[in-house]
């Protein structure tokens, strides 16, 4: 619409918007140049990409200090006009919207992109499409920044698609590997499934409010009056009359938008693409599948928060909670160093989405920020470890061993000490130990979830507590799998390669500085101190205060109406929740770590680890698994039976052992179950669709048999059928 408050813009705001545009196009220019001429440049132009991203980062910092807690900048430009029928003319605009959230995201995206590119200089060294890699990264960064800066849904959707496309390119970067190509396709497919819903939601909102502009939409929606089953909106610009919209359609519109988030942020049931996406280069996983792209869904939820009704938020909370739990469960059953992190990412994204759903809007965004840093750090650490393993495997000419299997690792604490010390803070942050950033954000989300459940269940329905229970359960599991991850990689002895020197770059340095510096920076940023002066209290966090809904939404909670203020009040009254959450979450995390330690010790004691040192590890691992299965059956099925008959004494004696095994069993069963759901429900649906498409396609091909006379028959038959179909209706 044209009446965007153009005259109110100061020259300063205009120039800020232009700077933002420059930030946006810098990576694109670099990426485009690299794709076209990268081969001809010195060092294939990696310096160009890094310089452009670096410049973009510094500009983002400038924008950050200009905008953060000071002003919001909204500049629009007319794009094109359309006439619909002969009544109205719709104008589409493009524009830039800078508020606290946008500038924060700008800084994060450019910063992590910069670090990842620096890291990649060594990591991707010698790849024959080195310059393409940096080119794709540039395009990705551009698209991601586009999502952040867009002020309207249409533009956002376009960048959304571009992000998907560049992610497809990057996942499939090693397209010689079939798995990588398949993974890229899968990622694209699942994202598009979500996008159809997203598009549907956009269309719905557009139809009602005749604008894609987020700010106008927000204002229009904020002025709505809840009438129970309907919302009454006063006449908005371009429309003569007040409109009444049904609650159901608005909920559906919100859920449509949420579908986009489900696809991109890997929420249940579309989460299956993310683990496969680990086929891409590790720095890519760090940037895209941990820090930025997958967080775009959460960003979208925040931007569209006013458009969600209370019921839509409930669905979001349920999906988020479920994803958090399922992701964590699946992570416990993995042994691939990157897959564990991938499932962990799914779980953490589930947290954020759940946080949005329970109205802990700011907590969720804080977690987005902290998670971006510590998860990027974890992935880069994993990259170093994999790099080292590759190095050793190359020296040994070992092509059979899986260099990403954590059971093949061990003892890296001594071999790669720097990496270890960089890894620990990030892992601690993920687990949620105090003093680390993850503690703050997780605590905030958990408190929010508890408060939400408490508030909602005031009517006596305690089912709402399922969500916080899921969330706390995930805390325990997170501790468990991260402890396992850490112990397997860094403790004990190196399993596969006995000579530690081979795992290092050389005698003096464990790895190149270009690999270590980004990791170090990110490790430091995993400390809580940077996000809140009081590392035990999230409430004082400057991030939380900057992205609170009161500030981002300008005190307009939107369709969910009084929910947010009510929860705030409730939490204020029930002040014990905050403290209890902190204690409980620390406790659960510690128990999780302890269980992880037990599990690791047990595996070591069972000799399960040592057997795989043999060169024919594939075979021995199989044996190991057989053994494991046997033991599992014995303990799970036979022992409990004996114990039941044996009485309480045996039960007591074996209590710890038993509970550990039960824990393991439940986890394995659940992990299997999730796998089954993936295979049969999600993949099954896909297969069904493919079948339907196949049958229809076959029919089309069968009719097209090259004989004119068959064409006659089918055409005339078609006419008759069409006629009958009309008669039937």
């Amino acid at each position, binding site marked *: 619409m044209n009446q965007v408050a153009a005259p109110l813009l100061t020259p300063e705001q205009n120039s800020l918007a232009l700077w933002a545009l420059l930030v946006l196009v810098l990576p694109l220019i670099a990426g485009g140049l690299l794709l076209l001429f990268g081969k001809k440049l010195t060092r294939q132009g990696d310096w160009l990409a890094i310089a452009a991203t670096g410049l973009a980062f510094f500009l983002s910092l400038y924008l950050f200090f200009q905008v953060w807690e000071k002003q919001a900048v909204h500049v629009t430009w007319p794009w094109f006009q359309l006439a619909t029928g002969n009544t109205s003319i719709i104008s589409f605009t493009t524009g830039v919207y800078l508020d606290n959230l946008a500038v924060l995201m700008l800084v994060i995206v450019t910063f992590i992109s910069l670090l990842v590119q620096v890291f990649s200089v060594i990591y991707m060294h010698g790849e024959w499409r080195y310059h393409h890699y940096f080119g794709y990264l540039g395009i990705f960064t551009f698209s991601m920044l586009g999502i952040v800066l867009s002020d309207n849904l249409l533009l956002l959707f376009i960048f959304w698609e571009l992000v998907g496309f560049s992610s497809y390119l990057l996942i499939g970067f090693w397209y010689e590997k079939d798995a990588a190509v398949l993974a890229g396709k899968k990622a694209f497919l699942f994202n598009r499934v979500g996008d159809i819903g997203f598009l549907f939601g956009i269309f719905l909102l557009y139809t009602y409010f005749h604008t894609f502009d987020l700010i106008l939409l927000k204002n229009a929606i904020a002025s709505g009056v809840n009438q129970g089953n309907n919302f009454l909106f006063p006449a908005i610009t371009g429309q003569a009359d007040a409109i009444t919209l049904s609650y159901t359609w608005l909920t559906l519109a919100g859920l449509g938008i949420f579908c986009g988030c489900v696809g991109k942020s890997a929420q249940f049931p579309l989460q299956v693409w993310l683990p496969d996406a680990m086929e891409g280069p590790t720095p890519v996983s760090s940037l895209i599948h941990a820090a930025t792209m997958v967080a775009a869904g959460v960003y979208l939820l925040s931007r569209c928060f006013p458009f969600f009704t209370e019921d839509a938020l409930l669905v979001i909370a349920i999906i988020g909670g479920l994803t958090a739990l399922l992701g964590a469960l699946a992570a416990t059953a993995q042994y691939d160093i990157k897959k564990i992190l991938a499932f962990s990412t799914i779980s953490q994204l589930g947290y954020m989405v759940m946080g949005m759903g329970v109205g802990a809007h700011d907590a969720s965004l804080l977690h987005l920020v902290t998670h971006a840093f510590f998860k990027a750090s974890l992935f880069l650490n994993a990259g170093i470890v994999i790099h080292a393993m590759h190095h050793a495997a190359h020296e040994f000419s070992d092509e059979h061993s899986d260099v990403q299997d954590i059971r093949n690792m061990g003892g890296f604490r001594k071999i790669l000490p720097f990496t270890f010390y960089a890894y620990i803070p990030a892992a601690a942050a993920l687990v949620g130990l105090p003093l680390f950033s993850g503690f703050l954000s997780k605590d905030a989300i958990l408190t929010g979830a508890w408060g939400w459940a408490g508030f909602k269940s005031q009517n006596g329905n305690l089912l709402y507590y399922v969500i916080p229970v899921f969330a706390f359960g995930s805390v325990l599991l997170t501790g468990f799998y991260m402890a396992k991850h850490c112990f397997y990689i860094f403790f004990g002895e190196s399993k596969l390669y006995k000579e530690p020197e081979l795992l290092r770059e050389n005698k003096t340095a464990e790895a190149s500085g270009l690999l270590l510096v980004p990791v170090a920076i990110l490790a430091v940023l995993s400390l809580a101190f940077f996000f809140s002066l009081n590392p035990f209290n999230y409430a004082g966090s400057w991030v939380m205060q900057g992205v609170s809904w009161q500030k981002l939404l300008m005190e307009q909670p939107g369709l969910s109406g009084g929910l947010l203020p009510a929860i705030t009040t409730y939490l204020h009254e029930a002040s014990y929740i905050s403290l209890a959450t902190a204690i409980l979450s620390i406790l659960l995390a510690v128990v999780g770590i302890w269980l992880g330690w037990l599990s690791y010790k047990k595996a070591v004691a069972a000799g399960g680890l040592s057997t795989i040192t043999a060169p024919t590890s594939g075979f021995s691992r199989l044996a190991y698994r057989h053994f494991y299965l046997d033991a599992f059956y014995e303990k799970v099925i036979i022992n409990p039976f004996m114990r039941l008959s044996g009485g309480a004494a045996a039960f007591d004696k074996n209590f710890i052992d038993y509970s550990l095994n039960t824990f393991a069993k439940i986890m394995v069963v659940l992990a299997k179950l999730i796998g089954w759901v993936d295979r049969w429900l999600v993949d099954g649906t896909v297969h069904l669709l493919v079948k339907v498409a196949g049958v229809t396609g076959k029919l089309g091909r*069968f009719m097209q*048999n090259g004989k004119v*006379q068959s064409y006659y028959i089918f055409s005339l038959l078609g006419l008759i059928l069409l006629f009958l179909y009309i008669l039937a209706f």
Partner: protein
Amino acid sequence: MNNIPLIPVLLLGAVLFCLGILAVITKRHAIVVLMGIELIFNAANLNLVAFNRHQPDLMQGQVFSVFVMVIAAAESAVALAIILKVYSYFKTVNLDQIRHETDV
């Protein structure tokens, strides 16, 4: 009175139309298919002439049918030329045999 009711004429047209359709579907010889199409055109012509009773002064139906004949003639000339050329390539006018294996 020299009166022919409308309905029988239309029915005659429908019979010819369907015989034409039957011919184009069932006969394998390309030229017989062409004859079937001529039958269909003639059925339409019969309708047009019969319906000329509307505004008989304007003669629209009859003029239309004359045009149909001219165009049908042009079309069958082209079709026959193509059939003959195809015959010289494939040595057959059997429609089932005139096709690539790459089809489908």
